[in-house]
């Protein structure tokens, strides 16, 4: 019977176990009712973990609130966040985005269930919260250059430089 269960159901059970493990590890910081809602606050950062079997059946999505963004403000910060995304994505770190209301900056990550474990979640969440708090401080202090996520662009830039001599066209 086990093999006939929909894979999404099996994954959901795995997800639940991971959340329970994470809750056990970080019990001091995470209220139990927050775990049941999949949303909690860690180091002043509101974080949601959620499982979307219809979109991504093999992993957990993580979303963290970074800060409110007023229309027309912080253009340098938004540019910096977009520039950081290249390195962040390449390093499997959370990337920056705006929430659908376009008024809040969020950080997003995807954690494959095959490699998701309670210690890994804890590491990711701790690093994420630190990054976000540093980002907030950068904005408050008017800095635009981030020191939190070194951008690994050397490969890509090298490829760009090569592109003129060796681009292939295929449609």
């Amino acid at each position, binding site marked *: 019977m086990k093999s006939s269960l929909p894979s999404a159901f099996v994954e959901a059970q795995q997800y639940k176990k991971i959340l329970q493990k994470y809750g056990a590890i970080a019990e001091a910081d995470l209220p139990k009712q927050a775990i049941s809602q999949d949303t909690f606050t860690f180091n002043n950062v509101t974080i949601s973990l959620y499982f*979307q079997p219809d*979109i*991504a059946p093999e992993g957990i*999505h993580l979303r963290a609130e970074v800060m409110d*963004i007023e*229309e*027309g403000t912080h*253009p340098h910060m*938004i*540019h910096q*966040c*977009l*520039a*950081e*995304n*290249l390195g962040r*994505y*390449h*390093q*499997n770190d959370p*990337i*920056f*985005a*705006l*929430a*659908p209301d*376009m008024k809040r*900056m*969020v950080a*997003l990550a*995807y954690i*494959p269930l095959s490699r998701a474990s309670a210690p890994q979640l804890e590491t990711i969440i701790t690093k994420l919260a630190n990054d976000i708090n540093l980002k907030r401080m950068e904005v408050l202090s008017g800095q635009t250059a981030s020191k939190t996520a070194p*951008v*690994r*662009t050397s*490969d*890509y*830039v*090298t*490829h*760009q430089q*090569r*592109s003129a001599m*060796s*681009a*292939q*066209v*295929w*449609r």
Partner: protein
Amino acid sequence: MSQSKFVELIQELCLTMDIAQADQVLDGSPVCINNVSFSVIHDPIQSQERLYLYGSLGIDALKDNPEAQRALLGINQDLFLEYGMCLAITPTDNKLIICHGLSMESLTAKDIIEQMKYAASIADSCKELFTETPASFC
């Protein structure tokens, strides 16, 4: 897996796309699909089992266009949550690119081409929207 799987995939990709210089593609030279140049990268230090597609959308000068930047950052949520892709700007030359990480397990060259085609279609949408009404995003 890792590097040998990556080499196999690139060779298969070049064969499928009728590209003679597989060595250059392995070394990061871009392939062009629907007018978008993609570099296919495998960095074992970052991830043994994933490869990354970086597609240059051919859009630049965003630094002086905060509305467009805001719009891009707004698109990123849906793009990431639904397709695992993300828009970014290269810090050095201020170009808009699309990033996509793919697990190499059970990946085929045809899958890579399909993903590149899809990313290229997003590039087209971005170009169209930014050249027409960038403010409509916000």
